[in-house]
């Protein structure tokens, strides 16, 4: 079973809460992190989330977008969303300034299985904006560093300018995360690794594969090959987790858009166990 939302489902799941943009941090081109605060203090006190969950950000008159939460779940009162401009809602969000208000419904969806991670090694395999939904998991694992074995982050992007949170890597390293970074295409200035992310997994030593948990988020093809690599290295399929993306409209399993075979990505996912979704991942148009 996936971890479920720590919050009781909203009495009215359609009611958005008003949030205000506390600050905006530009990350990379077309990507910014929005720190949000609830206007209603009671909601702010009540709100908590699990790593991997998402909120529906609602810009009245424009629509809603499902955006994963990117901040540390233990840091109460801090609610960050790292958003890439990809459509109408995210485009409009990018035009807002600190102080602007809009709506938020959430948190929704399943979470990264942190309780199953602790006690063993963890390898996070991710690419591009896929690091955003894993950042809370990185924080949570670092919060529980003493309970974990080896912690490794394998992260890739198309080019160096597509790498997120690079100014945080040193902090994560100091606190106990091995961070390996790669890009598909190098630049003259890039002295780091060139190649795809699954290759980093192929070559990394896995001392206790059967006690290793792999958390993946990125393009489905990348996750598929990362999982193949992990399986080939002896990681059990039930210890590999992926975060999937589908069109999300309601976020509460009532609108039908995000179905992926038996799963509603919004409420059964987005974080799902690899062996439960693997058979459908390479079926075209499903």
């Amino acid at each position, binding site marked *: 079973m996936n971890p479920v939302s720590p919050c009781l489902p909203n009495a009215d799941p359609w009611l958005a809460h008003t949030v205000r943009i506390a600050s905006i941090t530009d990350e990379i081109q077309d990507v910014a992190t929005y720190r949000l605060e609830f206007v209603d203090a009671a909601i702010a006190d009540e709100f908590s989330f699990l790593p991997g969950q998402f909120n529906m950000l609602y810009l009245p008159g424009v629509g809603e977008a499902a955006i994963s939460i990117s901040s540390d779940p233990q840091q109460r009162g801090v609610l960050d969303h790292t958003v890439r401009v990809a459509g109408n809602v995210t485009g409009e969000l990018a035009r807002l300034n600190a102080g602007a208000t809009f709506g938020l419904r959430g948190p929704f969806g399943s979470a990264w299985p942190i309780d199953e991670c602790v006690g063993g090694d963890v390898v996070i395999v991710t690419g591009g904006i896929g690091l955003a939904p894993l950042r809370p998991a990185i924080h949570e694992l670092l919060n529980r560093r003493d309970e974990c074995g080896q912690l490794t982050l394998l992260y890739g*992007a198309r080019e160096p300018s597509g790498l997120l949170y690079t100014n945080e890597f040193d902090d994560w390293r100091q606190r106990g995360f091995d961070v390996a970074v790669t890009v598909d295409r190098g630049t003259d200035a890039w002295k780091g690794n*060139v*190649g795809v992310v699954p*290759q980093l997994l192929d070559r990394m030593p896995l001392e206790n594969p059967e006690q290793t948990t792999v958390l993946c988020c990125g*393009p489905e093809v*990348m996750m598929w090959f990362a999982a193949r690599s992990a399986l080939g290295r002896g990681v059990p399929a039930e210890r590999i987790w992926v975060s999937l993306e589908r069109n999300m409209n309601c976020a509460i399993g009532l609108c039908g858009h995000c179905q992926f075979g038996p799963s509603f990505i919004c409420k059964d996912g987005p974080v799902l166990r690899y062996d439960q979704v693997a058979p459908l991942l390479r079926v075209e148009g499903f």
Partner: protein
Amino acid sequence: MAQPTITEQLAKLQFTKDLSELTRTALAGIAQQRTLIAGDIVCREGQSSRELFLIASGHVALDMFVPGRGQVRILTLGPGEVLAWSSIVGNHGSTATGTAVEETHVIAFRDEEFMQLCQSNHDVGYPVMRELAKAISRRLVSTRLQLLDLFAHESA
């Protein structure tokens, strides 16, 4: 800590770990350890290459020269991966330049000795060439993933 022997290293590296101990010992018999420092070139594009390298630790980058663009980095290789296989399965002419990007330990096999070993003893040769084929297959898959340009939609 004592430096691990070549046989000990082969037992851990992806290219050789699934081979039998006998095969690994045979390979160790023709292997040489070499330490590279950052900037050392192990093979040069267009030039003859007489050794196959297995990276034990560190990283080697592969660059190809494109007129007007200069050296274009296409791949970085790490522990357990092989390079300069043109010496074995090509015509000895390197298709890329391999440069150590940090202190790197490689295990080198001279092409004649490697081929001699594989040809004279098929019990060694077949599994070794199979591992080489698997390494090339993995490299091909990685190249395909690079070709797919999976993050293209994230780039402006």
